[in-house]
C-alpha cells in the first residue's frame, strides 16, 4: 500500500469541560493522524471523547468545554491559531460533519430546500439562489432521495429518519468538503436503513473524493467501512493500527475486550461485555486509565501512565504489557 500523506494531524489534544462539579477531561491527550483519501475509524465507548475530538477539530466545542492544549494541523494549516472568522470559512467548505441524531440535526422550521440552499450559500454569496436551487436538487439525487423536486419543498417532520440523515449528509456535502466527520451517523437508524446509509457514504466518499473520519462504537461498522482505526478510551488513545491488523492482532487489552463484545453469527458463544464502567473523567484512574477494568492489570499499570509505543509500522499501542501478552483477535 502506498504511503498517503497526512490530511489531518492531531497531536496531544486536550479539551476540558469546566463544569461546576469539576473539570471533565473529555479529551486528554488524543493524537490522531488521518491520511488523504482514507476512511479512518474512531472507536470507543460512549463518553470516551470521540465526538469531542471531532468538535475540537472544527472548533465548535460547546461551552463550558474548551480546548486547553495540543496542536491540530489540517492540510498544512494550524487550525488552533486560526482567527475565528477564518475558521468559520473552513467549516462546511473544507471540513464538514454529519451528526448522530437526524431527527434533531435539521431545523424543524425550514424546508429541506431552504436548509440546503443555506448550506450551499453559507459564506459564499457568489452562488445565485437559482444556481443554489439546482445544486440542492442534484445533491438530493446524489444522496439517493427519490423525487428530489418534491422533497425540496418538504419539512423535516414529513420525512423518515433515514431520509433525514440522507439530507443531513447532503447538507454536509453542500460545499464539497475535503474531510467529513461522521459522528455515529447510523446509530439512530434501524438496521436495514443503516446498511443503506453506510453504502451511500462509501459511494459518496469515492465520488466526492473525500477523506472520512467515522466515529462509532460499533466494531462491525469499523470493519465494514474503514482502512485504519484509532481506539480511544477515557479521553486517550489506547491503540491505533490498520483495521485488518487491529482486528487480527490487537495488542491492547481494551481492543481485545471490544472485539469480544461483537456478536458473531458463525460462532455460538456467550457474548462478553467489557466489564465495569467507563471511568469518571473528573478524577480518572491513575496510571493506565483502563487498569480497573483490565483483566491483565498488574501493579505498574496502576502507577505509571504507559507510553505510546510503536509495535510495527503504523501500529501504536499504549500498554505496559503489550510485548508479553498474546491477545486474541478475530478468529
Amino acid at each position, binding site marked *: 500500500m502506498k504511503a498517503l500523506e497526512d490530511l489531518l494531524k492531531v497531536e496531544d489534544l486536550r479539551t476540558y469541560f469546566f463544569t461546576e462539579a469539576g473539570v471533565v477531561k473529555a479529551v486528554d491527550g488524543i493524537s490522531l493522524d488521518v491520511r488523504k483519501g482514507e476512511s479512518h475509524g474512531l472507536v470507543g465507548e460512549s463518553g470516551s471523547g470521540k465526538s469531542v475530538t471531532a*468538535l475540537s477539530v*472544527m472548533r*465548535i466545542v*460547546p*461551552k463550558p468545554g474548551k480546548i486547553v492544549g495540543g496542536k491540530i494541523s489540517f492540510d498544512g494549516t494550524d487550525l488552533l491559531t486560526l482567527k475565528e472568522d477564518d475558521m*468559520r*470559512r*473552513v*467549516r*462546511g*467548505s473544507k471540513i*464538514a*460533519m454529519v*451528526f*448522530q*441524531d437526524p431527527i*434533531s*440535526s*435539521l*431545523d*424543524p*422550521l425550514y*424546508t429541506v430546500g431552504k436548509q440546503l440552499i*443555506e*448550506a450551499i450559500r*453559507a*459564506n459564499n454569496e457568489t452562488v445565485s439562489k437559482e444556481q443554489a436551487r439546482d445544486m440542492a436538487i442534484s445533491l438530493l439525487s446524489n444522496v*439517493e*432521495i*427519490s*423525487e428530489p423536486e*418534491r422533497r425540496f*419543498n*418538504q*419539512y423535516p*417532520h*414529513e420525512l*423518515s429518519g*433515514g*431520509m433525514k440523515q440522507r439530507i*443531513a449528509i447532503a*447538507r*454536509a456535502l*453542500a460545499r464539497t468538503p475535503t474531510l467529513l466527520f461522521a459522528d455515529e451517523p447510523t446509530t439512530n437508524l434501524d438496521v*436495514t*436503513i443503516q*446498511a*443503506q446509509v453506510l*453504502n451511500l457514504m462509501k*459511494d459518496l466518499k469515492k465520488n466526492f473524493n473525500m477523506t472520512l473520519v467515522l466515529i462509532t462504537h460499533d466494531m462491525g461498522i469499523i470493519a465494514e467501512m474503514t482502512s485504519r482505526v484509532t481506539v480511544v478510551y477515557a479521553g486517550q488513545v489506547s491503540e491505533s493500527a490498520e483495521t485488518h491488523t487491529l482486528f487480527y492482532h490487537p495488542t491492547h487489552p481494551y481492543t481485545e475486550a471490544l472485539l469480544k463484545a461483537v456478536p458473531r453469527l458463525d460462532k455460538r458463544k456467550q457474548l462478553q461485555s467489557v466489564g465495569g464502567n467507563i471511568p469518571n473523567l473528573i478524577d480518572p484512574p491513575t496510571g493506565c486509565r483502563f487498569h480497573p477494568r483490565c483483566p491483565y492489570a498488574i501493579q505498574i499499570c496502576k502507577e505509571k501512565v504507559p507510553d505510546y509505543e510503536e509495535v510495527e509500522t503504523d501500529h501504536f499501542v499504549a500498554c505496559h504489557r503489550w510485548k508479553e501478552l498474546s491477545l486474541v483477535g478475530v478468529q
Partner: protein
Amino acid sequence: MSQLTEEQTAPPKRVHRQRSATQWAVAWRRFKRNKSGVAGLAIVIAFVVFAIFGPLFAPYPPRSTESLLQGQAGQPPSWKHPFGTEINGIDVFSDSIWGARNDLWIGVAATAIATLIGLAVGALAGYSRGVIGGILLGIIQFFFVIPTLLLILLFSRVFQVLVYQGFGVNLIVLILGLFGWPGISFVIRGEIFRVRELEFIQAEKALGAGNLRILFRHIVPNVLTPVIVLASLLVAGNILTEVVLFFLGFGPANVATWGELIEEGVQYVSVYPWVALFPGLLVVTLVLGFNLLGDGLADALNPRLRE
C-alpha cells in the same frame, strides 16, 4: 445500489400537493378543533371590529356631557341611552365604545413594546454566556422584582404633564410597555437555553454559520411559540392594569376608557349601578377572550401534542 429504499416501502403519500403544510398551518388546523380557543378568538375579533367601526355609530363623542344640558344625567338604561348615563351626563354606551378602542390599543400596543424588548433582552441573555449573560440576567431580575404597579402609578403622575399635550393614552402604553417585558424575557431565555443545545444548532455551526445568523434565523424562530401565547395573555393583563390605574385615580384626565367609567361608576354604585356594570362586563368578556385565545394557542402550538 439498493433499489428498495425506505421511501418506496412507506405507504404512498398524496403526490399532487406541491408545498407542504408549514408548522403554522398544522397549528391552525389543531387550533380550529379547540372550542374554547375558537370562542376566545371570536370574542377578540368581535371587540376589534367593535373598536374599529363602533365609533362611527357612537351616539356621542368621547367624554361628552351633552346629556347633562338636556337634563339626562344619571339616567338608567333606555333606548336613547342603552347603558344609561352617569352623573355628569356622559353616555355610558358611547364611552364604552370609545373605551374599547382605547383599551384595545393600550393592551395591544403595550404588549407589542413589551414583547419586542422582552424578546431582544431574553434572546441576548440566553445566547451570550459569561459576563454579558450575567449582566442581562441581572437586569431582567431587577425589572422582575421591582413593584411594577407602584412604578407605573409613580410614572403616570410624574409625566402627567404630557397628558395635556394629547399624550394621554400613549403615556399608559409606554409605561405598560416599558415595564411589562421581564416575564417574557425569562421565558425566552429559558427556551433559548433549551434550543441552543439542540443538534441542529451545532450542525449550523459546523456549516460555518455565524453567531447572529444562528441566533436570529434558527434560535429565535424556534422559541416564538411561547412568546405568542404569553403575548396574548399579556394583552389581557395590560387591559386589567389599565382598569386598575384609572380605578385608583391615576389615569390621565379626560380619556374615555373602561377603567375611567368603572372608577366613576363605583363612586355612585348604589345610585347609578349601571355606570360600572356595563364597562365592567366588557372588561371581563374581553379579558376572558384573550385568556381563552392564549390557552387555545398554547395547546395548538405545543409540539408534544402533535397528531
